[in-house]
C-alpha cells in the first residue's frame, strides 16, 4: 500500500467514524419508553387495548414533531414486553426493561396478579412506573411506590361520582347490596354503604355469597319482599348477568341495579326485564359517544389499529392521555431522564385530553369518568367528576 492509498483509507475511516458518531447522536435523541402488558392470555382483553393506546399516543406525538426538551427534538420509541397474563412473565419482562438504562418511564398492566409482581420489581428501581391495576393503589405513596402512578380511579373516587349519579338516575331509596365473599367486596361495602346512606338511601341488607355460586335463588330470596327498590352488585359481567337473570325469573325483587363494574353488557340482554341499570366506565364511553373529542379519538383509533371499536376498546384510554402528560412533563422540567422531576410534574398537572386527567400527590387518579345508564330500554351515559 502506497502513501496515497493509505491517506484515502484514513480519510474514509474518518468519514465513516464521523457518520457513526452522527448516527449515534441522532439515536440518542430518542426517548425510550418501556411497556409491559399481557398481550396474550386471559388478561389480554384489557392489556392489549391498553398497549394500543400507548402506541397510538406515541405515534401521534412523533407525527406532530416529537418532544422538545431544552430546544432539542426527541422522538419516542417503545420497548414492549409480554406479561402473558402470568406474574412470572410480568417479572421477567419487567427485569428485561430495567436492564436497559435508557428506559426511565414504564407503562402497563391492568390486572393485579401480574401487576403486583411487576410493580415489586419496578419499586426497587429508579424508574417511573405508570400502571392501571387495582392493587397498585395499595403501593402508591409508600416506600418503593413513590415513583408510581395509577391512571384509573380507585373505588372511593369512583363511588363519589357513581353513587349520587346512580341515585338520581334510578331514583332509588332503599337498596340491598349483594356481592361475592371476597376481600374486594368488603372494601366495596366499606366505601359504598356509607356513601349511599349519606345520600339518603337506606341499605338494610348486605349479603355475601360463595364466589363460584351459580344458583342465586336462596340468596336472592333474602332480598325478596323487603321493600327494596334497588340493588348494588358486582364484580364481574358473568356474575352480574347471572344475578340479573335469576332476579328477573324469581320475581318480587328490585328491578333497578347499580353495577360496580365496567360494562352494561349484563343488563342490555335483559333490558325489557329491568327498570334501570348503571355501570362505571373508568375511561370514556365509546359506544354512545357524544363528546367530539371522543368521536375524533375513535376515528384515530380505527385508522391507527385498522380495527373497529369493541366493548374492550375503552381500556385503550387507560394510558393514552398519560403518555401526553409524560411528554409534557419532560418538556416542562427540561429533562428526559430526571424521573423524580417528571413524576412530580405529572402529579401536579391537570390535563384535558380525551379524558380529564389529574392525580393526587401520591399518584392516585382523580379523573372524571363516564357512567353508563340503561333506562326504559335505552342506553346512554353521563360524565361525572370525582
Amino acid at each position: 500500500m502506497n502513501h496515497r492509498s493509505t491517506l484515502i483509507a484514513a480519510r474514509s475511516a474518518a468519514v465513516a467514524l464521523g457518520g457513526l458518531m452522527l448516527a449515534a447522536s441522532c439515536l440518542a435523541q430518542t426517548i425510550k419508553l418501556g411497556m409491559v402488558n399481557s398481550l396474550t392470555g386471559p388478561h389480554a382483553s384489557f392489556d392489549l387495548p391498553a398497549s394500543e393506546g400507548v402506541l397510538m399516543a406515541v405515534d401521534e406525538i412523533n407525527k406532530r414533531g416529537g418532544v422538545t426538551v431544552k430546544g432539542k427534538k426527541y422522538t419516542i420509541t417503545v420497548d414492549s414486553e409480554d406479561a402473558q397474563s402470568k406474574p412470572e412473565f410480568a417479572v421477567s419482562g419487567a427485569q428485561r426493561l430495567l436492564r436497559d438504562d435508557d428506559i426511565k418511564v414504564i407503562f402497563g398492566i391492568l390486572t393485579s396478579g401480574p401487576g403486583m409482581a411487576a410493580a415489586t420489581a419496578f419499586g426497587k428501581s429508579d424508574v417511573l412506573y405508570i400502571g392501571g391495576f387495582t392493587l397498585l393503589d395499595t403501593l402508591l405513596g409508600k416506600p418503593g411506590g413513590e415513583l408510581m402512578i395509577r391512571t384509573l380511579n380507585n373505588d372511593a373516587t369512583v363511588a363519589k361520582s357513581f353513587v349520587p349519579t346512580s341515585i338520581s338516575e334510578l331514583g332509588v331509596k332503599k337498596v340491598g347490596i349483594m356481592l361475592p365473599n371476597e376481600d374486594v367486596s368488603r372494601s366495596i361495602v366499606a366505601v359504598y354503604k356509607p356513601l349511599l346512606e349519606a345520600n339518603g338511601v337506606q341499605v338494610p341488607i348486605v349479603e355475601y355469597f360463595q364466589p363460584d355460586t351459580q344458583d342465586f335463588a336462596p340468596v336472592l330470596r333474602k332480598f325478596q319482599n323487603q321493600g327494596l327498590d334497588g340493588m348494588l352488585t358486582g364484580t364481574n359481567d358473568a356474575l352480574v348477568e347471572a344475578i340479573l337473570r335469576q332476579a328477573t325469573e324469581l320475581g318480587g325483587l328490585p328491578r333497578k341495579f347499580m353495577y360496580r363494574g365496567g360494562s352494561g353488557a349484563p343488563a342490555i340482554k335483559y333490558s325489557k326485564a329491568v327498570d334501570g341499570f348503571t355501570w362505571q366506565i373508568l375511561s370514556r364511553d365509546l359506544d354512545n359517544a357524544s363528546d367530539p373529542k371522543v368521536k375524533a379519538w375513535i376515528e384515530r383509533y380505527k385508522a391507527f389499529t385498522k380495527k373497529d371499536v369493541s366493548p374492550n376498546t375503552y381500556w385503550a384510554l387507560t394510558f393514552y392521555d398519560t403518555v401526553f402528560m409524560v411528554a409534557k412533563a419532560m418538556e416542562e422540567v427540561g429533562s428526559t431522564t430526571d424521573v423524580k422531576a417528571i413524576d412530580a410534574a405529572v402529579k401536579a398537572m391537570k390535563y384535558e385530553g380525551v379524558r380529564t386527567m389529574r392525580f393526587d400527590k401520591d399518584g392516585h387518579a382523580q379523573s372524571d369518568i363516564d357512567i353508563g345508564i340503561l333506562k326504559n330500554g335505552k342506553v346512554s351515559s353521563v360524565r361525572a367528576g370525582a
Partner: protein
Amino acid sequence: MDLIQTLLDGLMVGGLYATVAIGVTLVFGIMGILNFAHGQMVMLGAYTAFFVVSAGLGFWPALLIGMVAMGALGLLLERVVFRHTLGDHMQGLTASLGVIMVVENLAAAAFTPDPRTFEPPLPGSFQIFGLTLSSQRVLVLVLVVLLVVACHLFLQKTRIGKAIRAMGQNRTGAALVGIQTTQVTAIVFVLGSAMAGAAGVLYGSLFAITPYMAAAPLMKGFILTVLGGLGSVPGAVLAGFLLGVAESLGSRYLSASFRDGYGFILLIVALLYFPRGLFGQRGKVRV
C-alpha cells in the same frame, strides 16, 4: 311461605344434582369406574342446547338432541377408552381424568371461555298459593322427576334394566346366566351419558355455560353417589334432593358464602350413621 319457597328452590336444584348423580352411580355400580369425565358430558350437553336453541330450533329439540348426542358420545368413549380399562379400575379412573383435560381444553379452544346463556322456554315467574316461583325452575323440576321416573321404570321393568341390575349385583354371575355383559356395559354408558346430557341442557336453561362448568356438578354428583350408596339409583336421587334442600336452606337462613359446605356436612353426618350410604346394600363396599 318463605320456607316452602326455599324448600322448592332446593328441590329444583337438587333434581339437577340427582340427574348427574344417576349417571355416575350407574357407571360405578356396573363397571366400578368413577368416571370423572361425566361432568364433561354435562358441559357438552349444555353447549349442545345452546347451539341448538341459538339455531332457532327451540328448547325441546335441544333436550332431545342433547341427550342423543351425549348418549352417542358415551358409547364412543366406552368403545374407545373404557372398555379397555375394565380390568383395572385405577387405569379407568386415570383415563377419565385424561378425557377431562382433552374435552375441557377442546371446548375452551372451540367455544372460548366466555359464558353463554340461552333463552329458557318459560321465562319469568308465577304466583301460586302466595308463593312466587320461577317458571323455568318449576319446568326443570317436572322434567327431572319425569327423567328419574323413566329411568327407574327402565331399570325395574325392562329386560335390559333387569340385566343392568343383575350386573350391578354380580358381574360374573350375570355373565354365567347368559347376560351379554359387554353390551349391557355399553348400554349403561349410553344411559348415564344421556342423563348427563339432559342435566346439561337443564343446567344451561338456568345457569351460565362455560367450558369449566363441569367441576361443580361432577363434585356434587360424586358426593351424592357416596351419600346415596355406591351404585344405588334411588339413593342418588334421594341424596340429590337432600343436597339441594340443604344448600338452599343453609344459604337462605344461615350464610350464602358457605353454600358448598352444607353438602359436605350432610355427607359426613350421613356416613356416620349410614357407612354404606343411604341406600347402600349390606355386603357392598363401605364408602
